[in-house]
């Protein structure tokens, strides 16, 4: 953390590499959602308009597959980065879900109902963030596998009965819907609409948050940084 940041009361929360991964994820998932839902809800007039805009159902497929390949590349890179890089390894450790997160969740409910005095004190990642991270990751893995199965349909046909491919289509589509709900409703609420960040948590662009925000939202992390003399 630079002196200028410290002077301005800023803390780095997302490194450049993470921001690039996040931006790729944002763009690619949006493209995949638009092209994918157009096919899933093909009888809808808006979907039909989108398919025409994409140049027909064939071109729609090409756009969807290009975005999918980039997304899977992003995923593979992310996995390697989290497992083996100096920056990724500790990040991954702090993302593990433990007993504490369930307790935190229950305490937050009690707090909002007026039954607890204190809001749970989070470390680097709170239960909302962890839930989102693992939910989205599992979803992307599942949707990638079913997507590859359907893409290489002739290859799949050699191994699976038709019903497996039928299931793959259903899972692929509904998993997409699930991911959409998780990311575009829950995540947007948490990083844009939530009163503590409204109108936006800037860290996905600048990588930085204010020390004051960190102290309020992630007190354990704040205290840790203080201890380490990084603040």
């Amino acid at each position, binding site marked *: 953390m630079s002196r200028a940041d410290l002077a301005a009361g800023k803390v780095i929360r997302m490194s450049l590499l993470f921001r690039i991964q996040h931006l790729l994820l944002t763009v690619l998932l949006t493209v995949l959602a638009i092209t994918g839902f157009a096919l899933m809800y093909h009888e809808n007039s808006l979907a039909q308009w989108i398919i025409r805009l994409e140049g027909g159902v064939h071109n729609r497929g090409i756009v969807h597959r290009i975005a999918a390949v980039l997304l899977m590349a992003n995923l593979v890179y992310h996995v390697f980065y989290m497992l083996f890089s100096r920056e990724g390894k500790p990040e991954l450790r702090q993302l593990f879900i433990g007993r504490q997160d369930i307790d935190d969740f229950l305490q937050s409910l009690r707090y909002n109902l007026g039954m607890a005095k204190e809001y749970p004190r989070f470390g680097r990642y709170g239960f909302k963030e962890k839930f989102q991270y693992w939910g989205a990751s599992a979803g992307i893995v599942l949707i990638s596998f079913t997507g590859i199965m359907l893409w290489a349909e002739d290859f799949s046909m050699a*191994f699976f009965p038709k019903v497996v491919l039928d299931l793959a289509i259903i899972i692929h589509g509904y998993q997409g819907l*699930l991911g959409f*709900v998780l990311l575009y409703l829950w995540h947007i609420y948490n990083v844009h609409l939530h009163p503590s960040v409204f109108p936006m948590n800037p860290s996905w662009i600048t990588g930085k948050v204010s020390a004051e925000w960190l102290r*309020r939202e992630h007190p354990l992390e704040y205290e840790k940084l203080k201890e380490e003399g990084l603040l």
Partner: protein
Amino acid sequence: MKRMTRPFLAAALAAAALFSTVPAGAAGPGIGECMDCHGDKTIEKTLPNGQALSLHVDLRAYRSSVHGKDSCVTCHSDAKAPHEKLAKVVCGRCHGDAAKSYSMSSHGILRAKGVTDVPACYDCHGKHDIRRPKDPEARTFRLNIAATCLRCHKDQALEQKYNLPDQKAMVAYERSVHGMASKKAGLTGSAVCVDCHGNHEILPGDQPRSATNRQKIPTMCGKCHPGILEKYEKSVHGKGMRAGIAESPVCTDCHGEHTIARVSDPSSSVSSRNIPKTCSGCHEKESISTRYALPKNRFSSYMDSFHGIALEYGMTKVANCASCHGVHDILPASDPASTVNKANLPKTCGKCHPNAGPNFAKGDVHVEVSPGKAMGVFAVRLFYTIFISALVILFVLHVGLELYGRWNRRKENGTGGKEGRS
């Protein structure tokens, strides 16, 4: 007397036989005498309604007609020179068979009742200029027949008066594959009106004797398409139709009638784009599925498949109904010869998907999503629907709870207060 008359009679008969085309002057006036008046181009009479009717006869047209070697009195037997109004010409005196079948046709029945805007013999064949049907100039020459019939059947007023199909249906023939073949390519082998409807004995299709009655249609089309008829007879539709099942489709149910077009023509009811709609005309009907114990939702389960969606957006090379089920030779899946029989599915799917083997063909294909038919897909879909709905409800509840908490703490300050987390 007897001895005297016998040779005379014999001679007279012989003369009559020899000169039968040129009757003796005593029987009536010769052509020359008739043409003295009727050769005049200005000769006319005034009809009761005030209209002028030309009485001119074009001798050259008559001479080159099929009756050109006869004389006027062959038909106008009561003609003298000069004469008043003549009796109606009765073609049936010579053409008895044609007159008999005509009298049983829609045209003949109405004509006999005195209706005059339905065709008599001369409306189709002409009067003095009648030519053989093989003569390219004849109104009844194969390539001229459509125009001859359409002279009346293009007329909206007539079509409405006799409750006939919309005149557009008639005109559509000209753009059909048959109409184009005769009109544009000049092929005499192409079907014209009379090939399907008959000529003198034309009747509406709903009458059992009509040539276009449903029960006769496959055989009728088979006159020109025998190979297809043979396949059709063996198909489930053909067998059903021959067994008297009225709902079993005949040629026209899929191909249309006057609108018949090539499969490659996008407007055709059997083009790859339109065929799902055509088949589901029957196969999406609840009553037909129930009565013949057929699987339901054929159309929707196809249109929701990738094949269906791709077809909807114009990828015509994807499989449509006919690609898997066959065309004229459609058989139920239970028949070992059917292309969609379990044992034949690898071959049928393999036409496009070479890897689709016996393993792939396990289980049902394009079934409605219900617990009985497709439990796996049904269960997964239900799970996701419930899961996603529950998640959305929980999200909304959570957001609501956070806002509720903040509202309760709005007076407090500091941690968890106005500016605090919620």
